[in-house]
């Protein structure tokens, strides 16, 4: 039987205003995790019932360590509580959950890894796995979209591919969206993997469809159970899904990564 794992917080750091970098000793989850999967974190306040689904930024199976980067949604929220937890604290979690990026689909093609905001962290694991798979970083473009100059993680991507940055305020890289940066840098891809806010994913899905580029997107939705039973976190699909028998799929169980052309944005 699968069960929750009792992890231990090793370190926690605010790497940008409101963005926290948490490392957790959780050997079972770390051993099984792959890029694009997530873990459910359970809070200590028993009145905050629901687990917080957080994407896996990186997993070190030999050390048994998960790295999770998340945005605090408010001082009095569950992520606020999480951000105040100190090294040595117990942190109960479930995972890895969901299906990650099918990186082998990249073959030898030119890949875009596209991330926006807190959608960026899971791409670090994806970029690392892609480099392991292909042995070279030359045909990987990593396009990262931020609000402003707080371009967390950007430097860590540098050994893994060509990093291109877009910011909403133009303080770093191209001013505008990730698509503005792709056009400005005249980039071209054979395969796209993306994680970020829904409008970004919708725009990328259109971009990919127009150019007939295979594209996978990691969707986000409010979750409850995290294991596919409660049907809270569905996304709309173009075709009737085999499990739900309606045009809905479960983000937590069938995703969070989907073929972009399956999704009705």
């Amino acid at each position, binding site marked *: *039987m699968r069960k*929750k794992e009792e992890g231990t917080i090793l370190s926690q750091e605010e790497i940008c205003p409101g963005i926290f970098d948490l490392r957790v000793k959780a050997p079972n989850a770390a051993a099984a995790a792959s890029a694009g999967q997530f873990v459910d974190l359970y809070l200590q306040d028993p*009145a905050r019932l*629901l687990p917080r689904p957080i994407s896996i930024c990186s997993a070190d199976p030999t050390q048994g360590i998960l790295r999770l980067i998340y945005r605090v949604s408010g001082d009095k929220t569950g992520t606020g509580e999480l951000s105040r937890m100190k090294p040595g604290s117990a942190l109960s979690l479930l995972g890895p959950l969901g299906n990650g990026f099918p990186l082998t689909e990249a073959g030898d093609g030119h890949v875009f890894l596209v991330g926006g905001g807190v959608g960026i962290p899971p791409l670090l694991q994806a970029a690392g796995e892609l480099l392991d798979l292909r042995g070279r970083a030359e045909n990987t473009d990593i396009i990262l979209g931020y609000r402003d100059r707080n371009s967390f993680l950007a430097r860590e991507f540098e050994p893994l591919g060509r990093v291109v940055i877009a910011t909403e305020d133009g303080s770093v890289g191209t001013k505008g969206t990730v698509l503005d940066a792709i056009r400005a840098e005249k980039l071209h891809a054979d395969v796209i993997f993306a994680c970020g806010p829904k409008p970004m994913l919708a725009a990328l899905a259109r971009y990919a469809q127009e150019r007939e580029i295979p594209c996978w997107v990691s969707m986000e939705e409010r979750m409850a*159970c995290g*294991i596919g039973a409660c*049907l809270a976190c569905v996304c709309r699909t173009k075709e009737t899904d085999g499990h739900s*028998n309606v045009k809905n799929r479960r983000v937590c169980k069938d995703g969070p990564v989907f073929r972009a052309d399956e999704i009705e944005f």
Partner: protein
Amino acid sequence: MKVNLAGVTLKNPVMTASGTFGSGQEFSEFVDLSRLGAVVTKGVASHPWEGNPTPRVAEVYGGMLNAVGLQNPGIDRFCERDIPFLSRFDTRIMVNVCGHTEEEYCEVVERLADEPVDLLEINISCPNVKEGGIAFGTDPKAVESITRAVRRHAKQPVIMKLSPNVTSIEDMARAAEAGGADGISLINTITGMKIDVSRRKFVLANKTGGMSGPAIKPVAVRMVYQASHAVRIPVIGMGGIMTGEDAAEFMLAGATAVSVGTANFVDPAATVRILAELEDYMRRTGTEDVNELIGAVAE
């Protein structure tokens, strides 16, 4: 730990609450379903339902709101896939039935008549669908009428699931009994709302949702107590059960069996933990038979 629920023997009184456990498949990775008194499935209708737009859930302090809107694959797919899956386990199967009209409820109940299903739970109390659901569950005449109609078509014992969003739960319980119900279950969720004050928007796409979780438990215990004193048929208690002592509390209030709902989201193994804790409570209090707990609160 055996209890008799409307003529069906359960190996223990701990069941799942409809809508929180799917048809058991996902949770079977975390829980041996054969340890449960019964698995109560998510509501199933005569045809597939899409459910509501997202967000469908929101956390509130001590509880949560949901407005899933009874998304379900329809009775045909359910009979092909979910009943055969559940039949592999040594547990009772209670199918929760939903519908927009009396005819739709009856169609599903008829379809289940020759399936290996032990009990039916009729959801006349979902606060998240526009037609059917709670519309049937908040008027005693409608409760009695739909109970009678369903009872006529059903081969299995019929449990009517009641809404707490009423002035008198006793009237609803009596109406179900008058219509021929073999049991009642309560409470369904309490209608609630959450507003994001920084964005000045409703958190749920449906605006309102059903509240569940430990914050509603005192309301649920009170209603189980009142309902069980109003009728002779057995009562299934639910609403915020998180521990074995919570389960015992519902039984002391008058429940023959209990359903664990929101706790499954806090811990996928909550059902079996609660069962173990209930057994522990019995040991500590010198209770030899779980049936001794039913309605045993000192007056």
